[in-house]
């Protein structure tokens, strides 16, 4: 062992210690606030950037701009404070997102932290939000365990339902259509071998069985698969009238393209994430009509229509038809709760749990910290992706089955 190297170790250690100690020195002065600090960590690079870049980040930016353009965030005394944003890139790594949130809470001491993108990342940071007392409005997280999480982390809010909700709604639609004689009761199903796909497929299997639907093809494929022709051929040969894919955006796009090439025309075509992306409608035009997926909107909701228009004007891209509007609505809820209760995070959290809010979704209220008024199934109709289930909900469009064959 060399003394010189020792010295290096010492020097490095001293630097680290100094750094850690200065952490102690910085703290927010309890002066009169001139702004409200919001922070978030989001995947700007890495494999999650694609999803975060469409559902989450543009809505954060849009909302901050909307609020600041209106003079700032309104406090209970009517005073308006501008929003200041601290933004970190978590580089699609769990370790990074944990560290970034810890930094926001303890180093930057922001007033509120917005949730990261993705089920896994929201779970990774949930203990931190809880420990530091921040409300966590987790939108881009689909999980059946939300009721448990709410017990564990009292200030967590889960806004996008769970796999069972979507699977049951789909099973009900298929069972009805099968009874009506529109389709046979056979389903071919594929799913991506990742959190989302597995959650849905494990929920779908029992739901289909219960609804009397027979699964004739049921396979899982790895993330990053680019060629779906073997699966499409198998599904096509299986005699099923329904093809279900719990897929990710690149897969959803590829499946659509390859189904057209293979002239594969299931009467019901249900695809996963990406179906509700505006680019999907744009790329596929009339061929998108009749294709189903998760989410949807009420085409007659003027608030929502206005939101979509503004989103496109401000961020340059149209919002997707599933998580985007809910992300924006979650921010409006937070904004309204702050207006009612101020910057006291405890009171704001309580208000989020119990209050009723007017958002782009209409009147919004959480049930046991979960948003339950969601569109479980949607369908492309007349160039829009509209909600069709639950069919008894106000603003539901009527489902159109079977879908037309591909036009070339």
């Amino acid at each position, binding site marked *: 062992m060399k003394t010189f190297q020792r010295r290096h170790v010492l020097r490095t250690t001293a630097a680290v210690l100094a750094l850690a100690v200065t952490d102690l020195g910085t703290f927010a002065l309890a002066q009169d606030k001139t702004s409200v600090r919001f922070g978030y960590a989001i995947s700007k690079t890495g494999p999650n950037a694609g999803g975060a870049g469409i559902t989450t980040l543009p809505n954060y930016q849009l909302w901050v701009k909307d609020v600041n353009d209106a003079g700032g965030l309104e406090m209970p005394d009517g005073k308006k404070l501008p929003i200041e944003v601290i933004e970190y890139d978590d580089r699609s790594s769990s370790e990074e997102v944990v560290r970034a949130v810890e930094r926001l809470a303890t180093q930057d001491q922001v007033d509120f932290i917005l949730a990261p993108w993705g089920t896994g990342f929201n779970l990774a940071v949930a203990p931190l939000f809880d420990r530091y007392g921040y409300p966590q409005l987790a939108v881009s997280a689909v999980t059946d365990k939300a009721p448990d999480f709410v017990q564990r982390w009292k200030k967590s809010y889960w806004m996008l339902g769970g796999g069972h909700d979507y699977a049951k709604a789909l099973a009900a639609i298929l069972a009805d259509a099968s009874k009506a004689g529109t389709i046979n009761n056979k389903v071919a199903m594929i799913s991506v071998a990742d959190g989302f796909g597995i959650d849905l497929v494990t929920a779908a299997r029992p739901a289909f069985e219960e609804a009397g639907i027979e699964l004739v093809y049921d*396979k899982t494929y790895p993330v990053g698969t680019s060629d779906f022709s073997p699966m499409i*051929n198998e599904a096509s040969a299986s005699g099923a009238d329904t093809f279900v894919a719990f897929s990710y955006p690149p897969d959803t796009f590829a499946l659509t393209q390859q189904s057209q090439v293979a002239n594969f025309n299931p009467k019901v075509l249900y695809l996963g994430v990406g179906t509700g992306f505006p680019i999907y409608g744009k790329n596929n035009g009339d061929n998108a009509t009749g294709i189903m997926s998760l989410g949807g909107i009420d085409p007659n909701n003027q608030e929502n229509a206005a939101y979509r228009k503004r989103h496109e004007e401000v961020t340059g891209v149209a919002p997707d038809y599933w998580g985007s509007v809910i992300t924006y609505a979650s921010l409006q809820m937070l904004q309204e709760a702050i207006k009612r209760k101020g910057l006291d995070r405890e009171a704001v959290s309580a208000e989020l749990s119990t209050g009723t809010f007017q958002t782009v979704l209409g009147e919004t209220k959480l049930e046991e910290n979960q948003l339950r008024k969601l569109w479980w199934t949607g369908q492309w109709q007349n160039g829009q992706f509209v909600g069709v289930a639950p069919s008894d909900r106000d603003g539901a469009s009527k489902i159109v089955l079977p879908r037309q064959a591909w036009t070339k």
Partner: protein
Amino acid sequence: MLVTALLSGLVLGGTYALVAMGLTLQYGIARIMNLAYGEMIISAAFLAYVLYADAGINPVVGLLIAAPAGFLLGYVVYGVMMRPLVARAKDKASLEIDSILATFGLLFVIQGVLLVIFGANFTSYNYLNVAVDVFGTNIAANRLLALVMALVLGGGLYMLLTRTLWGTALRAVAVAPASAPLVGINVDKAARMAFALGGALAAAGGVVISMYQTFTATSGVVFTMKALIVVIMGGVGNILGALSAGLILGLVETFVATYIDPGLTLAATYGIFLAILLWRPAGLFGRASR
């Protein structure tokens, strides 16, 4: 079913081979381990997308713009970044480490620029997504184009390398960069040419792939890794090796998906790759001395 699986496999493999050939030139002849290779592919994909979506130029014409642009980019990158590294490298290992570090940096730069310009969104468009009937199987024209290009370019390059004086010089540089100058070969020029050609191939691959595959500013790494696997499997610097390794991978994936389980396709890819390396540590067509 067998014919269908065979054809789908070949078409998929064509994409892999197309992507890998440029890298095998860059690494095999110019001796630069280019980790930014996938970013060059993605840049070309974005170029094709912009030309098609904003200027209405169809991607086949886009190919004629992107390939020379890729050549130029490769030429400049080699001249500015790589030549100093080659000049100062005292042996193969130190050039390898230097080029890995430098192109790792280049990877981030290109990716960062793409992120700033295009954002992180999924990008996709449809072009030539029409069925072509091949022996009773419907194959997408855009994917078929990738296979045809892989075969034509692969065959052409192979002829070029083995049948022309210029190609022989390139191969000499690959085998013995130190001795090549003794027989009057300009090593620097040859290596730069190979690197630029690799860039042109990457760009061509990017344009074709963009017609059917969804891409984002950050998905280059996936292509680099797939290409690396094909290159290593086929033997470094060997065009025919890359071509056959690509086709083998495509066939394996499709057959596993059809007859075993689609969930095991990627596992099978890596499995076969590892098996081939254990069987032939220098790749299918690799020279034992490597």
